[in-house]
């Protein structure tokens, strides 16, 4: 059990180098800005301050995005042009179609479930004594990595043959109600739903916080007026609360759709995309970085981009309206 701390030293040296580099960059930029002549047109200042960020954006995002688009029309090794072959593969081959179907299930269910749970919870705990604690409890999973959450839930779904004690909570519940233990993650198509539960578990806190803030923003007069008119709690919810927080609900739906489309970690940690559970982002990783099929991976990435773009544009518009 002797852990060799000395072997870790190069990392710490590297960290010091990194932090030193950071300090040098900041110092140089500030120094250059101080030295540059003050004029009304601030070209020199703007260049000094903007150039590092713009250069990194160019190298790290713009150029790669263009190259990925080109790669999606090329063969796996990136040498020959193959036209639309990669896209044809994506929309015709059964294994790729399963991936697209799963992604569709995810993107339909997750935003809906997250918003519903978050909204119900936010309304129920609103203005109660235990509100802060209650919200924190649901909110905590947001700090947990998808990988960590994946392990937490694999443990919940853990399976033991029915002659042994169950160690997974779900199977224990099933057994104690007289059922047979199941391999929850191995039986399509239900296993995708069990993965979706994990995502909902992580994201519900986000919905709760955003929607709860919106609920608190409803003018007190409106609530008071409705109450005086004798509205029941259910009527209050559908006639007053929901219409007043419509834009916040849309924000949650939209951000969840984007996040779900790009989802990778949960599927990778819990099933590795086996048993028909793969989604676009996971398949993209497999094709591009495990099977060496860069072309197919690139096509999947481009398709992801195409799916995300309209949602983001809608989100931007929506946000402008809210302002």
């Amino acid at each position: 059990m002797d852990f060799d701390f000395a072997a870790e030293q190069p990392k710490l040296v590297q960290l010091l180098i990194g932090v030193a580099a950071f300090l040098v960059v900041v110092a140089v930029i500030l120094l250059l800005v101080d030295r540059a002549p003050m004029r009304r047109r601030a070209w020199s200042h703007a260049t000094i301050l903007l150039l590092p960020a713009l250069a990194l954006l160019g190298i790290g995002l713009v150029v790669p995005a263009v190259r990925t688009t080109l790669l999606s029309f090329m063969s796996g090794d990136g040498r020959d042009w193959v036209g639309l072959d990669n896209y044809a593969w994506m929309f015709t081959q059964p294994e790729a179609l399963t991936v697209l179907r799963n992604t569709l299930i995810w993107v339909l269910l997750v935003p809906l479930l997250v918003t519903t749970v978050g909204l119900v919870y936010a309304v129920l705990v609103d203005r109660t004594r235990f509100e802060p604690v209650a919200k924190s409890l649901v909110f905590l999973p947001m700090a947990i990595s998808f990988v960590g959450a994946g392990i937490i839930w694999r443990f919940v779904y853990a399976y033991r043959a029915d002659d042994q004690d169950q160690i997974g909570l779900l199977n224990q519940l099933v057994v104690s109600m007289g059922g047979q233990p199941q391999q929850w993650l191995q039986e399509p198509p239900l296993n995708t739903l069990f993965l979706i539960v994990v995502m909902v578990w992580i994201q519900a806190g986000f919905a709760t916080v955003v929607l709860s803030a919106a609920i608190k923003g409803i003018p007190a007069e409106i609530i008071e007026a409705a109450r005086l008119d004798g509205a029941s709690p259910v009527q209050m919810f559908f006639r007053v609360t929901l219409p007043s927080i419509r834009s916040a609900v849309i924000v949650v739906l939209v951000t969840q759709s984007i996040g779900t489309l790009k989802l990778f970690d949960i599927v990778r940690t819990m099933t590795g995309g086996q048993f028909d559970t793969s989604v676009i982002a996971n398949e993209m990783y497999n094709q591009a970085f495990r099977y060496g099929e860069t072309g197919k991976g690139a096509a999947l990435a481009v398709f992801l981009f195409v799916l995300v773009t309209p949602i983001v544009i809608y989100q931007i518009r929506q946000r402008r309206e809210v302002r």
Partner: protein
Amino acid sequence: MTTLTETVARTRAVTAPQRVRRRLTSRVASAVAIVIAVLWTTPTFGLLLSSLRPEDQIKSTGWWTFFSDPQLTLENYQEVLFGTSSSSGQMMSFLINSIVITIPSVLLPLALSTFAAYALAWLPFRGREWIYIGVFALQIVPLQMALVPLLSFFSQGVEVFGLQVLPGWELEGSARFVQVWFAHTCFALPLGIFLIHNFMAELPGDLMEAARVDGATHGTILRKLVLPLVGPALATFGIFQFLWVWNDLLVALIFAGGTAETAPMTVRLAQMAGTKGNEWQRLTSGAFVSVVIPLAVFLSMQRYFVRGLLAGSVKG
């Protein structure tokens, strides 16, 4: 006065038959709220409790057995953190990697975004609007679009029409951290610039003008005037970026590789879940180690996190 008494009278009239019903619904409501809260905390609690149980018990009985047969040990943590055999977690190494990856990956985008946001918000130059819109639009690009070419940029350099323009970086050993920092910094900039710019643009223009009339340079204004004022925005972006980098799996898998030399804890946990899927004593304790630090940061800075969420900072 009359309106008030009227109101009171009406309220009373309404509540008499409704009071019972309302109390009932509030009972149901509380019950539903409690069920949700329990559902949301039990899985994590089960993990924590399991990580503290002896190995043979974790593998043979459920964690709820603890309540009838309480046995706790720290041995799993000892083993997963400091064990030296390759089958143990070696998590300490990966924990250090996570720290080495995270610190520069938070600091660099924080500084570069601040500079860029200041230029875009307060420097008068032509094309400013267009650059801002361009940066903003980059938030659309999913990471997946950048991964393959960026990796080849690191390993093979830049080649244009068969001509080597830039050599590959050829990073070995712990120097590979540099490419992880680089990737995280690039991917963080659109959101960082956007968030900090929004906050900066709302500083009062008179204040800036006054400082400039007094002969302050942009460097001085940025350091002495703007930085203290945008502290909350920096904290918000900082905590987002911290959680993002610490919890990231995809970028680390591709740019940090999979060995104890540079890979962070998330990569190790994903490996363990794949190859040692039934070694629950290591998985539970390992997962809990990786979760504790972000939880602590998160709880102490929740205020900024919530503010960021409400300002619309969600990254892809």
